[in-house]
């Protein structure tokens, strides 16, 4: 079977190693004229070099491996120096990238300091920063290798592809959808009316229109002058009738057509302040103010 399609067109487009002329990097007081040739470094952006690493541990691991030393036997000082020199080379404009690296640098400085200080007489059994760093590096190296192995697995959407197909035609699918009958609309309205809760609500609403009640209370009060609040409440229409009457009274008071007659003063001073009056639903009297 011939394979007319598969031309080896995909080429490895890795840029060649770049040797910058003057990099502001020194290792052991020697200016670095050439960065590791396994990394591509644009001359103006040292930060991009660091971006090649997944983080400061990755970078440290690189330095350790590059120096090809046994980590446990390795003197940490030269590595620290080297790390710090690289970090010093970081453009100040790229400090946002440097956060994690600076944290690592401070750890290295701490280790360096500790190693330079004279050893205490009694070996302190507290934390050993060098051992901790090595442990972290080893853990990181392990995860880095594990991630490489994970990446080598056959992965969906890189090495294996799901088969995509279209669904049956829209018409065929739509034919299976319930075609909503317009009668559903009417039926839903009938059902709505049959709902007892709804029914009660509409009847009350329509049987006790607020405007009608306002009109009837206005009529009574304007004719009688004053009237007991209690007698104004139309109890013949049940709880809703009472509520609507109450709302009607509030509305009339808001419009300043009706006022409360204090029970302990004569009716003719109805317009007087009611602030101190005792309000009792049984004896509360309303007066027409208009």
């Amino acid at each position, binding site marked *: *079977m011939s394979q007319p*399609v598969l031309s080896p067109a995909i080429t490895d487009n890795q840029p060649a190693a770049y040797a910058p002329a003057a990099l502001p990097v020194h290792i052991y007081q020697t200016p670095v004229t050439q960065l590791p040739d396994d990394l591509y470094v644009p001359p103006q952006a040292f930060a991009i070099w660091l971006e090649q690493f997944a983080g400061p541990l990755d970078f440290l691991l690189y330095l350790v491996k590059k120096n090809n030393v046994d980590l446990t036997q390795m003197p940490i000082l030269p590595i620290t120096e080297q790390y710090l020199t690289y970090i010093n080379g970081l453009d100040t404009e790229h400090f946002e990238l440097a956060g994690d690296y600076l944290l690592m640098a401070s750890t290295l400085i701490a280790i360096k300091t500790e190693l330079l200080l004279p050893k205490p007489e009694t070996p302190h059994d507290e934390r050993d920063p060098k051992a901790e760093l090595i442990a972290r590096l080893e853990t990181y190296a392990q995860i880095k290798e594990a991630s490489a192995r994970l990446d080598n697995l056959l992965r969906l959407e890189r090495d294996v*592809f799901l088969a995509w*197909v279209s669904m*049956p*035609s829209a018409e065929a699918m739509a034919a299976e959808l319930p075609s*909503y009958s317009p009668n559903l609309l*009417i039926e839903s309205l009938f059902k709505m*009316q049959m709902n007892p809760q709804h029914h009660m609500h509409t009847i009350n609403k329509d049987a006790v229109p607020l405007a009608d009640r306002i009109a009837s209370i206005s009529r009574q009060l304007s004719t009688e002058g004053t009237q007991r609040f209690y007698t104004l409440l139309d109890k013949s229409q049940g709880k809703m009738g009472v509520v609507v009457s109450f709302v009607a009274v509030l509305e009339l008071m808001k419009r300043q057509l009706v006022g409360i007659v204090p029970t302990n003063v004569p009716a003719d001073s109805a317009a007087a302040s009611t602030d101190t009056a005792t309000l009792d639903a049984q004896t509360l009297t309303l007066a027409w103010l208009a």
Partner: protein
Amino acid sequence: MPSTLPDDDTHALSAISSDDAPQLLTISRYIEVLLHATEAPLTAANLKKALNISQKQFNAALVLLQARLSEGVLELKVTASGYRLQIRDTYSPLIQHVFPQRQERLSQALLETISVIAYKQPVTRSDIEQVRGVTLSSNILRQLFDKGWIKEDGYKDTLGQPALLHTTPQFLDAFGLSSLDELPPLPDMVGLT
């Protein structure tokens, strides 16, 4: 190789020498793979270019592909935008049955709401609440908006300037109506008229 091919296509196939048959099968498989691997339909030009084949090879491979597909649940569809593989229409009841999220029963609350909007439009939220006697859950309105059955258009000139709701042409489509005049006549009901 399938033994039967559509009548008018044997032509294209027979024009190709029998030496080409294995290669044609490969090409037809490649076309099948590419159609499975793309979201958008592929044009004949796309396919010929991708596989570096002639029009003649393409035609013959397509015939072969169709013959191979004839035994299965997929079919080759040609649309204005190109070729695609599609589940045969005959399986749409099965799909609708098994994945009922595509199919949908409308809730009574949703039906009432859309009915009130349809018959009384334009209406505000509070008009709907007034008629239905219950607080309108925003979820129901969202469902109606999601379906594209209702839209907001204009504001009621009242306190708070509430938005006015209308039905859309999609609503008419969903209920098989060509205009609002075709809505069933509204029964004589308290609270609605």
